[in-house]
């Protein structure tokens, strides 16, 4: 096409074009260091010693951003949350999952964090149940049925980590749709898809499947490991889920753990609903009975269903005989805090600490450590908006993420008459 013109244009300066090769002369091993810039995470302290950068403040600000985004939804109006969740985690085991861009491989990273996620999930949602589904060679398999035991899920997953073939979103959704349709209406149906592939090979029209999921009120969320895909975005938008793409391993961890706290309930589902539950008694140590879930005789440490007196091994679960939901009261209590989250603490600039008026409290109310940094310089700290107690950053995170109660407010509550007298 362009011989004539091309020649004329190139004719004059037929130089070779490889004069500027920025990092072409580095070896592969050198380049990995150049990319990671490991020296930048070091810092010199006053005495000239090297030490890793103190990224506590950075970490804390990240955490607060997340807290604020969560609480801005939660505190605006008291939003109903789905406490009883039925979640299917879909793990894409297609060819793409064996890619090495996450170290050591995508699938290893997924497995590691799914394990952490399942534990965290049951910790935060003791009344909920999880099932695992894998996609391999274009077909979806159910790895574990819905259940409340983290150990069984993790064990099942760790045995099946080979990747091959294509991935099919539609097959997975169809399979899950079939399972989730059977669960009772008070349960919240959710799917979390961990998607490694960049395409989906479907047997039919996936748009219909998405509409079907929407109709059966399944909330689908996707975490991508490769790049943003239109169909995933569409799926999440239609069903009210969240679509995110992980940039690296730590980001992936952050994203997957975001799915642990219960999401706001879907409006049509938010009708108040009474659920029949049993609170079984723990059987006496040493008593022997046939367990209804494993169908074998076991000694001690079981629970007895209050309605049919069958023995089950673990809580929470559904009684295999009479179908009653069996929980223990701590489970309920642990779910409760999602409905009444503690307000985020206010950040106070460190200079306030030296204010003569505020001399009273120089220690964290939680851990009683000094709020001053080692060099007697004031550090960052936070204040509870209700009780005005001061807390260090570590306690702040601990109170909001694990404790779910403010020690300051709780201690006031016990001495309630004193407060009313003061007012």
């Amino acid at each position: 096409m362009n011989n004539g013109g091309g020649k004329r244009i190139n004719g004059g300066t037929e130089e070779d074009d490889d004069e500027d090769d920025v990092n072409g002369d580095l070896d592969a091993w050198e380049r990995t260091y150049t990319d990671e810039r490991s020296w930048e995470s070091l810092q010199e302290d006053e005495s000239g010693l090297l030490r890793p950068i103190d990224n506590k403040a950075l970490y804390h600000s990240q955490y607060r951003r997340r807290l604020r985004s969560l609480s801005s939804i939660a505190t605006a109006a008291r939003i109903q949350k789905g406490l009883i969740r039925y979640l299917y985690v879909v793990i894409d085991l297609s060819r793409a999952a064996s890619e090495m861009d996450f170290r050591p491989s995508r699938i290893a990273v997924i497995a590691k964090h799914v394990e952490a996620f399942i534990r965290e999930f049951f910790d935060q949602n003791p009344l909920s149940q999880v099932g695992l589904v894998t996609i391999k060679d274009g077909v979806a398999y159910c790895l574990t049925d819905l259940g409340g035991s983290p150990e069984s899920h993790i064990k099942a997953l760790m045995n099946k980590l080979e990747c091959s073939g294509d991935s099919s979103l539609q097959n997975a959704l169809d399979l899950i749709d079939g399972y989730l349709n059977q669960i009772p209406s008070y349960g919240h149906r959710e799917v979390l898809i961990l998607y490694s592939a960049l395409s989906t090979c479907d047997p039919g029209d996936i748009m219909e499947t998405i509409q079907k999921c929407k109709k059966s009120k399944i909330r689908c969320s996707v975490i991508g490991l490769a790049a943003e895909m239109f169909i995933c975005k569409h799926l999440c938008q239609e069903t009210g889920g969240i679509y995110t793409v992980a940039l690296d391993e730590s980001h992936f961890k952050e994203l997957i753990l975001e799915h642990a706290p219960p999401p706001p309930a879907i409006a049509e589902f938010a009708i108040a609903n009474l659920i029949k539950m049993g609170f079984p008694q723990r059987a006496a140590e040493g008593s022997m009975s046939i367990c209804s879930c494993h169908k074998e005789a076991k000694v001690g440490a079981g629970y007895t269903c209050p309605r049919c007196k069958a023995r089950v091994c673990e809580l929470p679960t559904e009684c295999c005989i009479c179908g009653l939901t069996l929980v223990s009261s701590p489970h309920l209590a642990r779910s409760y805090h999602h409905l009444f989250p503690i307000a985020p603490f206010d950040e106070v600039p460190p200079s306030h600490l030296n204010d003569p008026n505020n001399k009273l409290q120089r220690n964290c109310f939680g851990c009683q450590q000094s709020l001053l940094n080692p060099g007697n310089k004031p550090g960052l700290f936070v204040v509870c908006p209700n009780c005005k107690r001061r807390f260090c950053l570590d306690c702040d995170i601990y109170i909001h993420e694990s404790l779910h109660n403010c020690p300051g407010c709780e201690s006031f509550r016990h001495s309630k008459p004193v407060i009313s007298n003061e007012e």
Partner: protein
Amino acid sequence: MKFQIEDVTVYFPYDHIYPEQYSYMIELKRALDAKGHCLLEMPTGTGKTIALLSLITSYSLSKPQSPIKLIYCTRTVHEMEKTLAELKLLHNYQIKHLGPQARILAIGLSSRKNLCVNPTVLAAENRDSVDAGCRKLTASWVRAMAAENPNVPTCQFFENYEKAASAAVLPPGVYTLQDLRAFGKEKGWCPYFLARHMVQFANVVVYSYQYLLDPKVAGIISKEMQKESVVIFDEAHNIDNVCIEALSVSVRRQTLEGATRNLNRISHEIDRFKATDASRLRAEYNRLVEGLALRGNLPITDNWLSNPALPDDILKEAVPGNIRRAEHFLHVLRRLVQYLRGRLETENVEKESPVGFVASISSHAGIDQKALKFCYDRLHSLMLTLEITDTDEFLHIQTICDFATLVGTYGRGFSIIIEPFDERMPHIPDPVLQLSCHDASLAIKPVFDRFQSVVITSGTLSPIDLYPRLLNFHPVVSRSFTMSLTRDCICPMVLTRGSDQLPVSTKFDMRSDPGVVRNYGKLLLEMVSVVPDGIVCFFVSYSYMDGIINTWNDTGILKEIMQHKLVFIETQDVVETTLALDNYRRACDCGRGAVFFSVARGKVAEGIDFDRHYGRLVIMFGVPFQYTLSKILMARLEYLRDTFQIKEGDFLTFDALRQAAQCVGRVIRSKADYGMMIFADKRWKRIIKGLSSQKEISKKSPFLLKAPKSHSRFNINSTVFNSS
């Protein structure tokens, strides 16, 4: 939002404005103040259209004593609709803030095909037959006949429009083509003639380039536009080609055969008229003797395309004697067709200047220059006299007369090229005679002369100093704005070497090298495995694309690509391509992912958007130079060198660059979009280095692609290509 630019209060319908939009408006305002022409470049996706519209309407509102008219020219009907939709938004905003005094009339004007509401006429498949269908129902003699004989069909919409006469007006507002049709249906008036009538009263007119640039159309549509108008050519990077095409004619063997058929039919008609109504022919003769203007006193529906030459070049004289009589004119045409047929039978490529060609016609066929010059008008008059309505049948003879008139009128800036066969397929005889115009400034000159301000704007006009030379005008403002990006949403790269370190290029001596083909295949293969959804690839030509796809198929690369994404290919067949595009979109939608192979300078590269997930990556394989052995291009280059002192190399590079920028610009249509662009040819490095306005960035775009690790071995330079 509302803000002040010097003495003008600008009403802008959005809450935010980009900095480049603001500076764009300032420059535009200066040009309007100076009443001069301007040349403005701003990348696509920065809201050029709304900036233009809101500044000019606000400017007009702030100076109520001297209202200016806005003529907005777009390339396609689709763009016309988009512009009108934006204008509607703006208009509603201005009314909200200013009240009824801000009311304007804005209409879009298009061909009958897009505006007709008569179902019987609309059933025809192409534009010409819709035009003819309309004429059959609305020509003055048909209507006269219908008045006597009620069985003669007429168009109800047009009759109603005529009956309403001066009462048929559009109330102020913004009318898209859709709105016009709806309004016409509701009132029972013909939207096409209504729109044509309202054009002279409207504050804003949106129509196609041809209505101003092509003298055939401009003569009837745009002749009544006032001088105080602002003319905007949007997406005008190809405006020189549009100008040239407006004045170029090509004649093939089929054209001549068709013309002979047409002539037989005409002579038949003449005989019939002689037998029945001889006075009619005599009346026409007398009219021609007096040299009456052919247009002007004719009813609006009998108007056709007017003379193809520019208005200034048409002689205001009586038609010469030797073609006044219908039979004589017919003989002249027959001789002309005969002569052209003889010329087409040549074995060699011939190139001639119009002057020599006219001399040769006059010695061989005995037709002098003046007679040639009047051919078009004479044919027009004859067909009116003979009351011929199915004009779509007579396109061939019209083409011949078109040719004759242009050849008779212009001595410079044109050449006549006869090629006995296509250069690429020398075995198949396909003779073609082309009258090609080399001077883009000819067609656009009347526009520059007539209107107060002409704005030429596009996303890609660099190098911006070339356009004033090509179009031969002096802009008062000529500026280029760069896009301000708040995040890295584009990632352009130049790839000079393949994974085996061999340079890649589509240079003629390298393109068939198996190493280059393999490296291109490898590149695509790696990209399909890491890029989600859609990928668009542009090749330099159809033949190159066919060749490379065949090789990929033989070596199994294509099969590997298909494992990741489906493959769709643009062909020269429009229907096939449309179907491929449709399926490509579906594959992108449903998550399967797809690759579209297309050709730079093709239909797809010019008009189809691959925004959002339809194009996450575009790969430009090679540099899209024009086919430099083409006789027409060579003649044009020679003319440019001699007349405007533009070097051949400069022009070719400029042309390749704007084509490439068009291709890669298809993927980013707004700032919210993101995408990656790869220029795969070693020559790109030098071309882009040559651009003065380039910037270097090395950051990768976020949230997008993780280029495979092996890619760092590619010799990749990230370069922001300001035109993309």
